């Protein structure tokens, strides 16, 4: 068997097993990565040294640094504070509640890990809905979709963005210029579509009157450690200044994130360091590392080269056709398969296209939008979707795959369409 067939088989079987969700994705990726090294070593297309070289430590470092900051902030109750405050400000009006909770999760997801954000904010959402006697489905689905969408706006908002930025050399500011404006418009489109799709549900909520109970919530009492909250927030703000000034201070985003985490640890000095370190999502870091190794095997076996050649044959196409096509293809794949392996697999393909003289910058941005927005389409499209679905099972109105397809798929199509239009406009107006 040729190296291409062996490595493709390992990668495709791993993807299939990740899709079935029978075994944790990290375990599958780890086994597949090691299989790729062992088989590759014996078949002569991959070596242990090469496997180490392909791991992008800049991505892993940035993820881990940000996770450490979140690990320090998480126990303080700050995330719940924001959700309760948002709920209270909505005065219990359904549309306003959806906007407030959606905005809180989106804004936090733009700067911090959106999985942690959803894990901490969704239970408060359910509680607020229960207090008001509302069906939780519209709020949970919207929260996941809006937070997925918001995360696409910044370099640190979504793991595929971190991967793409590291590979393409994009800075934090590049995302603020090229992605943020497009995502702001797309976010409002998503909000409008969600409001339209849930109009009947909201109509039925107008007669409910438990607003008084909502107004009696005391957000401040959820803040367990105000001192630590302040300290970590100061460090997070400084980290973002660091990201903004990346080109001036000549530090990689991973160095900035890790330095901030170290400063925060020194300042906060958590009483139980082991507990803080346990809050780091090690499964995600191992998943990333294993995927790098797995895709490295595909690359060394020459599989990705075949894809690049196929793409070169479409070189006669206008870059915009290629870009918009990439947005939609990646979005459709990402709505069924985890967007992280797809992004990691496409990065070397685009890099090789770049070495052949193609202008790949617009294609990097297409990959950002496709990978980020595609996940909204199905119940398994993103981790946030899976989390709100599993939390909804504890309520009277569990979210079903059919319901997600009915509400999430139109949002995915509308946001990808909007992003495609703006992508074309940006290409002509400011260039990529």
């Amino acid at each position, binding site marked *: 068997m040729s190296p291409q067939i062996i490595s493709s088989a390992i990668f495709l079987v791993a993807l299939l097993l990740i899709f079935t969700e029978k075994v944790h994705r990290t375990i599958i990726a780890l086994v597949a990565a090691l299989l790729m090294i062992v088989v590759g070593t014996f078949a002569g297309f991959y070596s242990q040294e090469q496997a180490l070289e392909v791991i992008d430590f800049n991505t892993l470092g940035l993820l881990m640094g940000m996770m450490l900051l979140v690990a320090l902030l998480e126990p303080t109750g700050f995330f719940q504070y924001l959700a309760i405050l948002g709920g209270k400000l909505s005065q219990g009006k359904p549309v306003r509640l959806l906007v407030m909770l959606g905005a809180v999760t989106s804004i936090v997801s733009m700067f911090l890990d959106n999985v942690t954000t959803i894990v901490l904010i969704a239970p408060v959402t*359910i*509680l607020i809905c229960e*207090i008001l006697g509302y069906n939780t489905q519209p709020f949970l689905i919207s929260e996941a979709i809006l937070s997925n969408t918001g995360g696409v706006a910044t370099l640190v908002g979504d793991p595929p963005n971190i991967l793409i930025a590291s590979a393409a050399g994009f800075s934090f500011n590049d995302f603020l210029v090229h992605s943020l404006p497009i995502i702001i418009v797309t976010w409002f489109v998503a909000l409008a579509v969600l409001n339209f799709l849930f109009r009947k549900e909201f109509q039925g909520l107008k007669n409910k009157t438990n607003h*008084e*109970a909502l107004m*009696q919530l005391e957000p401040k009492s*959820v803040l367990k450690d105000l001192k630590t909250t302040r300290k970590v927030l100061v460090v997070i703000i400084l980290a973002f200044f660091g990201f903004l000034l990346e080109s001036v201070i000549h530090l990689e985003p991973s160095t900035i994130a890790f330095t901030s985490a170290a400063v925060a640890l020194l300042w906060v000095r958590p009483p139980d360091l082991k507990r803080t370190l346990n809050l780091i999502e090690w499964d995600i870091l191992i998943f990333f590392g294993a995927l790098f190794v797995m895709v490295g095997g595909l690359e060394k076996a020459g599989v990705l080269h075949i894809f690049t050649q196929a793409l070169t044959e479409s070189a006669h196409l206008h870059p915009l056709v290629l870009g918009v096509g990439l947005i939609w293809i990646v979005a459709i794949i990402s709505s069924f398969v985890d967007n992280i392996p797809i992004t990691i697999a496409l990065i070397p393909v685009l890099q090789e296209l770049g070495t052949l003289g193609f202008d790949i910058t617009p294609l990097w941005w297409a990959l950002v939008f496709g990978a980020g927005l595609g996940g909204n389409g199905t119940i398994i499209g993103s981790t946030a979707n899976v989390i709100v679905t599993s939390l909804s099972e*504890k*309520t009277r109105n569990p979210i079903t795959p059919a319901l997600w397809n009915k509400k999430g798929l139109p949002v995915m199509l509308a946001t990808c369409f909007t992003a495609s239009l703006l992508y074309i406009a940006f290409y002509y107006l400011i260039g990529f």
Partner: protein
Amino acid sequence: MIRASMKRNVFSIHENEIIANAAKLFVNHRIGTLPVVDGSNKLIGILTLQCVLKIVMPDFVNLVGNFEFLNNFGAMEARVPLQKELDRPIKEIMLKPFSVNENWSLLHAAAMLNKENVIDIPVVNDDGILVGLASHVDIGTALIKSWDLK
């Protein structure tokens, strides 16, 4: 031995009963734990008041962790289970069985209570057949009685 301190006339419920019937037993007899048994009176699960109350106060209250910010539970206060929720079989909400053997010592039973973090524990014979129920008060007071209190 635990068998000397346990209650022998114990209310139990069959695995195929529905939640509504279990709820009636809890209310009518003011009890907090119902051992769940099969046709041969073998212990196959445990139903507590907490298992039933979870229908109106689900796990998300625990997920939030801290609810000091809640002064008023609003619509949740008036929440009553839907008929379809009460018609579900108890099998769906009962806990896995845990028990002590009737021949175990009081301290062994107390350790089991502690491990399971419960206040009542079913007592079974060597064949796993339910023979009684011991509460933390039954076990605790029997243990204290054995001390040389002056």
